[in-house]
């Protein structure tokens, strides 16, 4: 065998082994690589209890309630299957709004309320000008009316 082909095989084998090893490590750490849990996972008890974790989902439309002090906010986060009520004290990011994605970090209270210490807005991969967004909203409204 030529030294060149020998090197090719050795190196190819080493790279294949490396990829296999990394794949195994990533599968093993699957749990820790997740940035947030979904409300369904939380409801099923898959989320960690007693320590801080994050829940990601959509802010349930119509759920945002501001307290009299102007800082405390209550809202619900949903993945359209399960709903988790959240309380948070502090300023919200500009993109935080009803029906949009958000990630909240905090602890689950005994009363089933999630006490958030940090709220992040999650942006989706859609980019469109305001007119197009307006058109999409209108179309969705029409579709809803037709269904009803």
């Amino acid at each position, binding site marked *: 065998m030529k030294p060149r082909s020998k090197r090719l095989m050795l*190196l190819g084998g080493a790279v294949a082994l490396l990829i296999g090893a990394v794949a195994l490590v990533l599968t093993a750490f699957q749990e820790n690589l997740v940035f947030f849990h979904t409300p369904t996972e939380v409801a099923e008890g898959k989320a960690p209890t007693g320590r801080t974790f994050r829940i990601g989902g959509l802010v349930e439309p119509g759920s945002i309630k501001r307290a009299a002090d102007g800082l405390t906010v209550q809202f619900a986060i949903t993945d359209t299957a399960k709903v988790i009520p959240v309380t948070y004290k502090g300023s919200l*990011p500009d993109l935080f709004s009803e029906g949009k994605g958000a990630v909240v970090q905090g602890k689950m209270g005994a009363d089933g309320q999630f006490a958030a210490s940090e709220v992040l807005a999650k942006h989706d991969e859609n*980019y469109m*000008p305001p007119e197009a967004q307006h058109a999409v909203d209108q179309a969705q409204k029409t579709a809803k009316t037709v269904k009803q």
Partner: protein
Amino acid sequence: MMKDMHKPERSKSLFRFAAPQMFYPLAGRLAPWFAGIAAILAAIGLWLGFFVAPTDATQGDVYRVIYIHVAAAWMSMFVYMVMAFWSFVGLVMNTRLSFIMSQALAPTGAMFCFVALLTGSLWGKPTWGAYWVWDARLTSQLLLLFLYLGFMALTRAIEDPRRADKAGAIIALVGAVNVPIIYFSVKWWNTLHQGASVSLDKAPSMATTMLTGMLVMALAAWAYTIAVTFWRVRSLILERERHTDWVAAELNALEGKI
């Protein structure tokens, strides 16, 4: 090119450019063209991005960071893959130019990686509400920057170029595993970073003018990378071949011009 083809003493195949002294003049001829293309494309892309493209419905004007961020992030991943490719070729075929190529690419890849992290962070604060989060996408991209810096530090720290080449090539190959992780992180795990707006398996989820501006900027980044890499390859070749006759002749010719 045609002139070269008729000279019988030279090999006709493209592989003749694997010899540093053959690649040196070719890179010198091509680099200014790519630099010119890069400047023109960047001007068009920035004009499209900042003056023609509409604002985004939810993000407002902040979204315009994508014209730099996405091109830089794509390039930072692609450059590393090219580095890994040349390192592999170098280790198997024992060709000096392959190692020189991957070392010439590293600083540009590192720069794009840094730009992607920086612009992403500046975008993250107004959009997400945080400059930095430890999600899979951001963390793996940060790891890519460390891999670039590690590669550059290692290849420069070892005196003997042959050993430096081999050590660097191994880092480049091992680190290449990280690139698909960066790319697919938003698919495999829940991340704060949004999924891909442009990918091979679905229609782009972006308005057309926005998309055009972004793609033109990506092409500009390609042309820029090729230009600066060729220039860097030339200086690396001169440095390594400084004891050879052809470099001496080249330098004499250069002095004659001045």
